């Protein structure tokens, strides 16, 4: 099937690689931000350097990072790994602060109650603190997801295959069709990610629904 002079099955292929390039870094970034945010919160003196340091990552323009990473990692410039690493860095930049703030929003009396019930620090973290921080962390994750999806498309300029290829392809042929299809596909993908995160959050926070009902 074709739409605006663009083959839809090709768009779907590009969308799948786009989803990988934007989605995988979200998971890796989240896994790295959790300990970083925890450390920043628990060791007061580490909060400013960790938050400022991760925030600094975000100031680097994406195209610059895509170009510099091959030099640092020793990868080929076309290697999708560069995009994965770059997006992971941006995710960490956005999420570390959110994780620290989310864990910090857990009320002290709840933490103390958990301790009084005999929970050790590790079990308390995973069973009490982390679940209660889910709403805040998921809000940060939604921002990161949407910005990742839009930023991955820039990688088309260095030739990494994803929805952004529709932009460069359309522009080189002065054809508006593929570009418009690409923009729509990007936005749809961002909405899909957003809905997915909302759904997971809903499943992970059953108590919020009970209160509302």
């Amino acid at each position, binding site marked *: 099937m074709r739409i605006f002079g663009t083959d839809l099955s090709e768009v779907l292929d590009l969308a799948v690689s786009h989803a990988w390039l934007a989605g995988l870094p979200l998971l890796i970034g989240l896994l790295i931000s959790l300990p970083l945010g925890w450390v920043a919160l628990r060791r007061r003196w580490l909060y400013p350097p960790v938050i400022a340091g991760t925030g600094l990552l975000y100031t680097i323009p994406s*195209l610059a990072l895509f*170009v510099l990473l091959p030099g640092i990692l020793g990868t080929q410039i076309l290697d999708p790994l560069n995009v994965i690493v770059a997006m992971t860095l941006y995710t960490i930049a956005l999420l570390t602060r959110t994780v620290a703030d989310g864990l910090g929003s857990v009320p002290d009396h709840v933490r103390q109650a958990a301790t009084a019930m005999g929970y050790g620090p590790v079990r308390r973290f995973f069973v009490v603190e982390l679940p209660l921080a889910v709403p805040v962390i998921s809000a940060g994750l939604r921002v990161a997801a949407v910005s990742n*999806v*839009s930023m991955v498309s820039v990688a088309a300029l260095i030739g990494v295959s994803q*929805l952004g290829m529709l932009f460069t392809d*359309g522009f080189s042929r002065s054809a*508006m069709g593929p570009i418009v299809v690409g923009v729509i596909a990007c936005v749809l993908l961002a909405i899909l990610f957003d809905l997915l995160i909302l759904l997971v959050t809903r499943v992970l926070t059953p108590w919020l629904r009970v209160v509302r009902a």
Partner: protein
Amino acid sequence: MIATIWAWLTDPANWSGAGSIPDQTLEHLRLSFIALAVAALIAIPIGLYVGHTGRGRVVLVNLVSAFRAIPSLGVLFIAALLLLPRLRGELAFELPSLIVLVLLGMPPILSGVYAGIQQVDPAARDAARGMGMTGQQRLWQVEVPCALPLIFSGLRSSMLQIIATATIAAVVGLGGLGRFLIDGQANRKYDEMAGGAILVAVLALLVDLVFAALQRYAVSPGLASEARR
């Protein structure tokens, strides 16, 4: 690898004349500040209005998050294809990109200004009303000063967004440091690409630092200590 990039960065030939490093840095800054100024002129009044009156809140919040999802590269190409044939001369290369820079620079300012005004302590607002201040006085003498930290963070993320997008806009002919990245790639010169990338990253960091310093100077010390807590 690092040696060749360093050689490119320190080559005197790259530091003088048209299209040199200082030349493109100034061009990048010029375009970014024009875009930021226009974006701020449009977005700050709207943000203040919505924050102060609470009208149009839902529209603004949704619009801002929808805008974040729009890929800047795609919008750049659409603007270029639409406007390039209709414009002549220098303007043909700058205007499409500038429009996109302004558009993408607005959402962070909008949400910063709006959120800043919105989160002003209701007690401070009530006290101002109790002292007989008019709506205008409350806005300018109480709400805006209290909102400055968030207004500044909106301006800073807007500027970062603009600097990054201006880099990409070299593809559609815009001047600035992005030229080194795009031309370097076209000529298969990795040293030029990487050198340009380092310059862009440093420029973004320095501009953000200047804004951070301005923020320190402009924000009331009473609020600053609260933000640091």
